[in-house]
């Protein structure tokens, strides 16, 4: 079956990257494996969405995986709120500021992030890579949630200006 062979090949070529995305966001191996299954089921069934997207294939695949992992973590954390795990939520794993930024250094977005204050750029990177919520970002930076939202939206405004320049 031609389409199945294509899917197998696609899986072989892309599973490591997408699993890396799920692992990073979910930080739990078993959950990441489950999420990865759901991601490829989604890719198979929603391939028609790709046809109308302007994204490059690999960007589209990463977006599907990231959004799915973030949806999972968001609903997971809602359920856990008020439980003992709250302590864990308040202490997100290694500061995203410390994350090495690999590859594609010349990309526009890196240049534009450098135009932001260091801590604000770190907040944007952290949100993107590990899927931190407004609530978590506010907690980590010790500011009220609305302040965090204002800061991030100002950063996004500057980014947009820079990206369109």
């Amino acid at each position, binding site marked *: 079956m031609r389409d199945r062979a294509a899917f197998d090949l696609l899986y072989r070529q892309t599973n490591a990257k997408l699993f890396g995305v799920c692992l990073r966001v979910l930080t739990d191996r078993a959950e990441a494996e489950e999420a990865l*299954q759901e991601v490829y089921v989604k890719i198979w069934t929603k391939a028609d969405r790709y046809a109308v997207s302007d994204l490059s294939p690999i960007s589209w695949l990463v977006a599907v995986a990231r959004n799915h992992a973030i949806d999972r973590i968001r609903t997971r954390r809602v359920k856990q709120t008020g439980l003992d795990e709250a302590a864990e939520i308040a202490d997100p794993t290694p500061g995203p500021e410390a994350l090495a930024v690999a590859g594609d250094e010349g990309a526009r977005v890196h240049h534009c992030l450098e135009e932001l204050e260091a801590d604000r750029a770190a907040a944007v990177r952290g949100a993107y890579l590990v899927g931190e919520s407004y609530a978590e970002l506010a907690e980590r930076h010790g500011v009220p949630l609305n302040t965090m939202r204002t800061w991030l939206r100002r950063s996004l405004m500057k980014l947009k200006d820079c990206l369109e320049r």
Partner: protein
Amino acid sequence: MTPTDHHEPELGGDEALAAEYVLGVLPASERQEAARRIETDVDFARLVDRWEDSFSPLAAAYVPVEAPAAVKQAIDRRLFASSKTAPRASLWNSLALWRGLAAAAVVALALVTAWNMQPPAEEPAAPRLVASLESDETDVRYLAFYDETAQTIHLSHVAGARAPDQDFELWVIEGDEPPASLGVIATGERVDVHPEETLRTKLSAGAVLAVSLEPGGGSPTGQPTGPVVAVGDLRSI
């Protein structure tokens, strides 16, 4: 974070919602709402795509980790267990999708659009050769795309790291001839290699490409000295 002046403009409206959705900062309920809008509102979906595209270089920081085989088996059970395939499966027969997503076009997956080239359907019949470079013994994987017109090999690094003091070197092998070096592969997700004329002839003939692990700076002998960590046939698409 330092409180700066209060007159800095903020991103607002749909543009902000799209960016926040892509970053992932929204709470569950607002994410669901945004996801619904993506399905029903073309303009909003386009805003989301634009932010996905702008931020996508950040995804280079995700370290690839090969998923355990059990995951693929579970996916196959979910998708292909019954004789009836998934309802949307027929879409995979769509030629456009094939060119974008699948088959030898998996190479196109990382490459064709990644280098902002037109999809093959709209291109004049310029010869294009692709190879998937891999090996069962290692996790090193590159996709190679040779554009004869531009006389350039586009390499996309899919997986596998080199040690800090070592380099990957690219070789072209035609028939029984000894490998000819195409040089050390620079680090990075996408690397362009510009072969000299004699080597271009070999490439056009559909030679084999190989990646060997060499001391920093490349092979001192002009021939591969370390193990071949990935290899693949150049084929036309």
